[in-house]
C-alpha cells in the first residue's frame, strides 16, 4: 500500500523530470529537472528495499553530479541559448548537430529501442510480478565488494586516484617553469 504510493510518486517524478530535461530550453532549468529525476530514481530504489543504493544515489548525484553540472553550465555561460531559425524557417537551437550526428543518433536509438523491446517483451509475456525479498544490508554490500568484486573495487580506486592526481596537476600553479625562465 505505502510502497505503491512511494512507487507512483517516484515514478512520476522520474519520468516527468526526464521529459522536462529534454523539453525545456533553459539549461539551468533542465539541470534542476534532472535533480528531480535523480531523486525519483532514489525513491524507486527505496521501493525495492535497496536503502544503501538509494542513499548512495542521493550522496553521489544530488550532492556531487548536479552541483558539478551547475558549475559547468554557469562557468561556460551556456544558460542563454538564443532561438535560431534554420533555412527552412523552423526553430532550431545551436549545437543540435548535422546530418552525421543525426545518423549516429538514429542508429543508437534503434539499438536502444531493440534492447528495451526485448526486455519489455519477455517481462510482458511472463506477466508475473516477482516478489522481492532481498534484504540487502550494508554488511552484505561491503562483504561482496571486498571478496567477490575485489578486482573491480581496486581498479576503480586506482582510477579515482588517477583522476585526483590529474586534477591536482591541472590545478597546480606552474611555479617551477617560472623559476626556470
Amino acid at each position: 500500500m505505502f510502497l505503491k504510493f512511494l512507487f507512483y510518486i517516484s515514478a512520476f517524478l522520474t519520468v516527468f523530470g526526464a521529459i522536462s530535461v529534454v523539453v525545456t530550453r533553459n539549461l539551468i532549468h533542465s539541470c534542476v529537472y534532472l535533480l528531480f529525476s535523480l531523486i525519483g530514481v532514489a525513491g524507486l530504489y527505496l521501493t525495492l528495499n535497496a536503502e544503501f543504493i538509494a542513499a548512495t544515489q542521493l550522496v553521489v548525484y544530488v550532492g556531487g553530479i548536479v552541483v558539478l553540472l551547475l558549475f559547468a553550465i554557469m562557468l561556460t555561460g551556456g544558460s542563454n541559448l538564443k532561438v535560431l531559425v534554420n533555412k527552412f524557417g523552423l526553430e532550431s537551437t545551436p549545437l543540435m548537430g548535422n546530418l552525421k550526428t543525426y545518423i549516429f543518433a538514429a542508429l543508437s536509438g534503434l539499438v536502444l529501442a531493440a534492447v528495451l523491446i526485448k526486455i519489455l517483451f519477455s517481462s510482458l509475456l511472463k506477466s508475473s510480478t516477482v516478489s522481492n525479498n532481498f534484504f540487502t544490508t550494508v554488511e552484505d554490500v561491503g562483504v561482496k565488494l571486498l571478496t567477490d568484486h575485489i578486482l573491480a573495487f581496486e581498479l576503480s580506486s586506482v582510477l579515482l586516484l588517477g583522476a585526483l592526481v590529474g586534477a591536482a596537476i591541472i590545478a597546480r600553479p606552474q611555479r617551477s617553469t617560472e623559476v626556470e625562465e
Partner: protein
Amino acid sequence: MNQTIVSYIEHLTDKQFGFGITVALFFLAVFLLVNVMAIIGGLGTYAERKISADIQMRQGPNRVGPYGILQFLADGVKMIMKEDIIPTQADKLIFTIAPLLCLSGVLASLAVLPISSGFTLSDLNVGIFYLLGVTSLVGVGVFLGGYASNSKWAMLGGMRGASQIISYEVPVTLTILMMVMLAGGLSLNTLISGQTALPHGWYIFHNPFSFIGFFIYFIGALAETNRAPFDLPEAESELVSGYHTEYSGMRFAFFALAEYIEVFVVCAVATALFLGGYKVPFNVGGDGPIGQILQLVIFFSKSFALYYVVIWVRWTLPRLRVDHLMVICWKYLTPIALFNLVGATLWVYLFEGRSIYLILKHFAEAHMVGGGH
C-alpha cells in the same frame, strides 16, 4: 531495537496497529517534530541575538514577552506581512524553488535524528549516510538561490557557498566514516549504543584519533552550515548579504530557518556520534515513558550546549578569507582526517576496539595485582 516511533508505541502498549492508525500516528509524530524544530530554529535567532548581546555587553531583544523571548514570533509576523518581491530579471522558477530545496533538505534529515531510543522517526540502517545525502540538497539550494537572483553579489555568494559546502563535505565524511568503523554500523542507534552514558565511554574519548575527529567534524560542520567564521557566502561587508540578497519576506525566512535548523541538526549529529547521544546515566527510567523523557532532556541539553558553542564562536572569531578557507579544508583538515582514519583503523585492529579507558583500567588493575605480591 525499535525501527520507528510507531513500532515503539506498539511495543509499549502491546498492540498491533492497522495501516490507518500507523499512518496517522506517524503523521502526528512528524508534525510534532517539524514544529518543534521550527520553534528551535526560531528560538535560535533569539538565542543568537541574546548571546551576541551578552558577549558585546548589550541588552539584546527585551520588549516582546518576558526577556524578549517572543521576539521570533514578532519576526515571523513581520516576515509574513512583508511584500514578496521577485526581481524582474530573476529566473522565476529557480528563484521560487531554491529556498524550498534548502528547507526540504534540512527537514528530510530530521527523519533519522535519534532524539531518544523511542522517538526516532525512522531508524534507517543507512541512517548517517542518508543524512549526508539529503543535507547536500542545501548546497544545491544555496547555489541555485544565488544564481537565480541574477545579481552579482548573490551569484558570488552562491558560488562560494556551493564550493565551500562541497569541499568541507570531504573531511566531515571521512570523520563520520571513522566513527562508523568504530561503531560497526551506519544506523544512528547503532552508533549511540556503542557508547555509555558517562563520559568515559563516549566515542570522543575512545581513542586519540576520535578526539581529533570531533574537532574536525565540528569545524567542518560550521563550514557546511555557512556559520562564522566560515560565513563567506553571506559576508555582509563584501557581498551585501550573499546568496539571499534579493530574497525578501517568507522566502528569506525559509533560508534563515533552514540555516538555524541545520545548525541544530549538525549539533545533534555531533552529540550522537561523539558525546553519547541520548544515553541516560545508570539507565534511569529504563525504556519506559519516564526514561524517554529523561533521554529527550539529555539529548537536547547536549545539543543545545553545542548550539551555544556555535553561536559563541560566531561572535568571537573574525571571518576567514576565501582562499584561506579552501587552504584550511584541503591542506589541513582533509589530510588530518585521512591520517585519523588510518590511525583509528590501526587502533581498532591492534586493541580489538577497546577504548583508551578500558586499556588504562586494565593496566591499573594489573599494577594493583602486581603490587600485592
